């Protein structure tokens, strides 16, 4: 089966082509089905590959497709690498992807861009698969930019709305900034190792000076920042919520945004060698986590809250990477994929029920109206807040444990983040589902549970969110951490926790206690005292206002980059180009006429003058020739 790895990306591609060319002609149902089937097919294939690999003793197998770019020493084959990491991500992508496709068939039912939606979605899956399956940085880069394109297309899916288009453009350009770093990183890798193929370079990594490695790692990390919405390149992700909710779930929660983590894990060799780089990763990660979490506290748009929580969760993952807990990070990616997708889809279902309303201030008391959604979202919320035995608990705890090992400060920040997470998630939950309905009349009796096509994925994901933790049970419970063993082959320095079991228990206890305390506090705040977020911004205290406005980061970026560039653009064009360079060119042209008009005055028609001119000429010549020596 591994030999046929090409099938994995092939199916979505086929789906994309069919929907792309004939989407308008065939019925909605058909195109939806085609899309789902194509993904399912590649899920099945990946599953087979996964199993085969588990039994194979060669844990990294290369599948050649065709040779792509050759330039002397630079050989870039179109080549796939099948190893635990890629297969695992394949499973996540195709699996979750499939569920979300199914969900979308229901969610997008009324949209006229139905087939277009699935076209993009399939294309996305195709690129995402390329991203994880490629055996060299170029293939990864293809996927990298490809998913960027798809997120651009999907964010701007409702292209009539300019705000959405801007969001899409912002996402694409922000990603491009990261991509430049990534590309330069790749080039540096080529310049250093003479190859960009994973299987070639990682073995040589030891032979190169650490400083070079650091540079490479940094450049790559810039790429990761862009893709995985880390400071300072995170601002596109919240705006990206403009896209249809399934998109948010698939791209901006489960898969694409974790590409950064994937890439860092993939290049863990570099990061393990360069402490500077990994320190940076950790710090950036934890800062982002905290920063985003605080913003999350004051958001009222249900999707925005989830978006910021995604950012902060990604931050946590990078924290994990930074402290060298690669497997834990992957583990968290997995669980996060489960519960965050779940939450988004749930939110989607809520929005669906509310007829497009996204402001939690206008919701409330929905828990009886839409039971399944409520329960599943409850599960998701608990999972993300990190209560045992739900999946989030294990993965987050693992990361924090490793962090504690690495540095207490980072650990503390991590803790705070996770508590904040618990707060805003439960705030969301309470405001949405409890209390009494705050929406309009017709919204109220329009409320209804979503169709099965939407609820089933919710249920499945909920189940996964519950049991997902089993993938990486803590070792000190005397159980084997499947995930870390799974990833051992591809990780240079797998670090098993060296803490005393007491400490680990203590940490775990702290985490749980903290979470519970926060939840109780939230309960008091919103259920007992029935606290409601203010309706108008000016009722906020100044410091709240700052946070509410996301620390004005967007405005700052505008002032720092967009406006100056626009200004420069105008200035260059008007002053430098037209009034200076071109003016010089034209000036030379004009000077001809000017000189000509002066010279022609010599030709004044009087013989006497002409002769004088000639004689003067003679004088001059004689002078120069004979007397000036």
């Amino acid at each position: 089966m591994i030999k046929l790895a090409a099938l994995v990306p092939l199916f979505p591609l086929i789906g994309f082509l069919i929907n792309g060319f004939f989407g308008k002609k065939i019925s909605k149902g058909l195109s939806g089905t085609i899309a789902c089937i194509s993904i399912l097919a590649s899920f099945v294939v990946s599953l087979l590959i996964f199993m085969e690999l588990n039994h194979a003793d060669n844990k990294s197998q290369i599948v050649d497709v065709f040779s792509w770019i050759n330039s002397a020493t630079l050989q870039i084959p179109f080549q796939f690498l099948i190893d635990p990491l890629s297969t695992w991500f394949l499973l996540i992508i195709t699996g979750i992807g499939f569920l979300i496709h199914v969900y979308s068939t229901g969610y997008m039912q009324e949209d006229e861009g139905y087939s277009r939606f699935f076209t993009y979605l399939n294309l996305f899956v195709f690129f995402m698969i390329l991203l994880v399956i490629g055996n060299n940085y170029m293939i990864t880069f293809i996927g990298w930019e490809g998913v960027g394109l798809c997120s651009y297309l999907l964010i701007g899916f409702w292209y009539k709305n300019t705000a959405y288009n801007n969001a899409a453009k912002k996402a694409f350009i922000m990603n491009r900034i990261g991509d430049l770093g990534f590309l330069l990183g790749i080039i540096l890798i080529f310049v250093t190792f003479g190859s960009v193929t994973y299987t070639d370079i990682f073995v040589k990594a030891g032979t190169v000076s650490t400083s070079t490695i650091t540079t490479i790692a940094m450049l790559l990390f810039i790429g990761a920042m862009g893709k995985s919405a880390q400071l300072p390149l995170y601002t596109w992700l919240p705006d990206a919520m403009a896209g249809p909710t399934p998109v948010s779930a698939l791209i901006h929660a489960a898969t694409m945004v974790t590409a950064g983590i994937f890439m860092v894990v993939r290049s863990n060799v570099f990061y393990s060698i360069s402490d500077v780089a990994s320190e940076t990763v950790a710090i950036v990660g934890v800062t982002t986590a905290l920063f985003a979490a605080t913003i999350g506290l004051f958001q009222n748009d249900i999707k925005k809250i989830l978006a910021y929580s995604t950012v902060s969760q990604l931050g946590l993952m990078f924290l994990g990477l930074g402290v060298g807990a690669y497997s834990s990070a992957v583990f968290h990616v997995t669980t996060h994929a489960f519960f965050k997708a779940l939450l988004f889809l749930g939110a989607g279902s809520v929005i669906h029920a509310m007829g497009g309303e996204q402001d939690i201030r206008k919701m409330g008391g929905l828990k009886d109206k839409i039971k399944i959604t409520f329960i599943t979202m409850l599960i998701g919320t608990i999972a993300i807040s990190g209560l045992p035995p739900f999946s989030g608990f294990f993965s987050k705890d693992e990361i924090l444990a490793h962090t504690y090992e690495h540095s207490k400060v980072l650990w503390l920040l991590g803790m705070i983040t996770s508590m904040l997470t618990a707060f805003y998630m439960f705030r969301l939950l309470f405001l949405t589902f409890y209390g009494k309905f705050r929406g309009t009349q017709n919204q109220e009796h329009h409320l209804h549970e979503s169709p099965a096509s939407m609820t089933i994925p919710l249920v499945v994901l909920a189940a996964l969110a519950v049991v997902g933790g089993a993938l990486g049970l803590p070792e000190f419970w005397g159980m084997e951490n499947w995930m870390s063993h799974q990833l051992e082959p591809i990780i240079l320095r797998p670090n098993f926790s060296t803490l005393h079991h007491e400490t680990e228990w203590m940490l775990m206890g702290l985490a749980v206690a903290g979470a519970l305390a926060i939840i109780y506090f939230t309960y008091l705040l919103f259920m007992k005292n029935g606290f409601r977020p203010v309706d108008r911004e000016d009722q906020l205290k100044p410091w709240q206002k700052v946070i509410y406005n996301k620390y004005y980061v967007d405005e700052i970026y505008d002032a720092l980059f967009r406006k100056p560039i626009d200004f420069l653009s105008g200035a260059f064009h008007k002053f430098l180009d037209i009034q200076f360079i071109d003016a010089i060119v034209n000036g030379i042209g004009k000077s001809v006429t000017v000189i000509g008009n002066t010279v022609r005055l010599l030709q004044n028609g009087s013989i006497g003058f002409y002769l004088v001119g000639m004689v003067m000429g003679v004088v001059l010549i004689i002078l120069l020739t004979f007397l000036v020596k």
Partner: protein
Amino acid sequence: MINGISINMYLMLSTILFIIGAVGVMARRNTIIIFMCIELMLNAVNLLMVAFSTLHNDSNGQVFVFFIMAVAAAEVAVGLAILSMIYRNIKSIDTDLLTKLKN
């Protein structure tokens, strides 16, 4: 030395005459006089030619002078013809009136 007179003398003399002629051509506006000045220049040259030919004891120089004379005559003839034609047209031979063509 030509009969006790240094060739430099002749050189200077004819140069001076030549230049006087040139100045006349430049300075005067009366066309007739301009022609005469040209004749003067040619004569200066003649003088020089003869001087050199005597110096070299070579009669070619003097023969050449004949040709110069012929040419001078021809030029004068043509010149005066043009002159008369101009006079016919503008009733004047002042060069200041002959500046239609300029720039």
